[in-house]
Every structure is written in C-alpha cells, then in structure tokens.
C-alpha cells in the first residue's frame, strides 16, 4: 500500500503522544494525496471500477473471507470477497487478471487477529492497464487483487412475519 499503510496505522496508534500526533497529520496528508491520485487515474478506469473506487466505504465491515473460482468458458477467474455489517452483506466480485495475494502481518502486530474486519483500502492502475485494489485488514494482513472489472453486490436481510394457517 502506498497511502494508508500498516506502518502509518501503527504510528497513529502509538502510545507516544508526539508520534501519534505527527501520524494524524500524516494521515490527513495521505487522504489529500490519495484524492489527487484517484482523480488522476480515474479516466483510465471503467465506469464501474471508478464509481466503486470513489465511493466504497467498507471500514469496520466484518471480513467473512474470499473465494476464488474459475469462470466457465473463460481463461480468467473470479474472486468474491465477502463482508457483513449488521443485516447487510456486501460482495466484491473481481474479474481477476492475476491470482490474489495475501501478505501476512508481522508477528509484532499489536491488534487482535480475531473478528477480522476491513480497515482501509486503496485503488491503483498498473502499467499493464490492470486495476489493483489493496486492502488492509484488522489482523494486519494485506489483500492485493489485480483485475480488469469489478462489481459490488449488496444484500440486506429483512425478516418477514409468516402467517400461521389455522
């Protein structure tokens, strides 16, 4: 990740006050830099990817896992990243150009590795034109997905009363 790095996350959570204060300022700068970065690469994105990159906010959603499967009659594969927030499920469906990468956190990662949730993410366009989405999870892992198209599917569970037959 270039902007919302695990290192910056650790710094603004530092118990040392001056380190944490500096990191908070650096975070605001990273937000500004990322905004400019996204503005620059957006014309190279498809409509769907551009819209998702601009508006996606899955911060704090529970990470349920990722499933990768081949697409019938195609050379590529589909990765489904599944998330939940209350009664709402979100699935990010990536039409992959490469196998996903999962980079583990260092052993010294100080935060819980249970109940994994989404922290921060960033989009990029690679020199070969493929899109890249990197995600920092609460267990310190970084997911990297390289793809040529992306869809966001959302579903809200609603409970319905069922009438009993006499």
């Amino acid at each position, binding site marked *: 990740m270039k902007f919302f790095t695990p290192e910056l996350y650790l710094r603004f*959570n530092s118990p040392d006050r001056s380190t944490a204060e500096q990191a908070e300022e650096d975070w605001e700068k990273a937000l500004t830099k990322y905004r400019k970065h996204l503005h620059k690469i957006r014309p190279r994105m498809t409509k769907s990817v551009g819209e998702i990159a601009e508006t996606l906010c899955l*911060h704090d959603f529970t990470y349920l896992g990722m499933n990768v499967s081949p697409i019938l009659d195609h050379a590529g594969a589909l990765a489904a990243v599944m998330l939940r927030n209350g009664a709402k499920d979100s699935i990010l469906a990536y039409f992959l150009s490469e196998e996903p990468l999962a980079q583990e956190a260092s052993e010294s990662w100080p935060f*819980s590795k249970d109940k994994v*949730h989404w922290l921060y993410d960033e989009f990029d366009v690679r020199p070969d034109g493929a899109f890249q989405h990197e995600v920092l999870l609460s267990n310190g892992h970084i997911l990297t997905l390289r793809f040529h198209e992306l869809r966001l599917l959302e579903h809200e569970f609603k409970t319905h009363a069922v009438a009993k037959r006499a």
Partner: protein
Amino acid sequence: MRGAALTEADAVKERKAGRDVVVCGQDKAANKNLARGIEQMANGKYKLCLPHYATGGQGLPHFQPDPRPPDGHCFYETKTRKSKKNP
C-alpha cells in the same frame, strides 16, 4: 449526528451498550483524551481509527474496542472535523 448531551458516566454506559457517542469541543487534544478514556473504561482494550477516504471531510476519528464486541464507536471532534448537529 450529535445527540443529547451526556455525562461521562452515561457515555461509558452508552459505549458498553454498543451505541455511538461523540466528544465535542474546540480542544482536539482534550476531546481525544476524553474519548480514549471513555472507550477504555467501557470496553478495556481499544484502538484508534482515523477517517476513511470515502467519508470525505465528514468522517470523525474514533476509538473502538479491540476486538469487538460491542459495536459502536467513541468519536471525537477535531479542529476541522465536526459532528453534524440535529436540525
């Protein structure tokens, strides 16, 4: 959205129940210290999360339990990031 004013003890109860609270005021350092204290008293171990890109200028920094549960966040205002007031 800013709700009714709470005492610190009530804020701790709200956080224990998994509801959001927000510490408001002009002094960011004091807001942050109070928010941290509330989260720690309510839920013990905590972590800080700063606003996500997609929230724009509206997002507030917040403390939350590590790990969850309970749900919710202890937000705090900064010099430039303010909670919305009830109309």
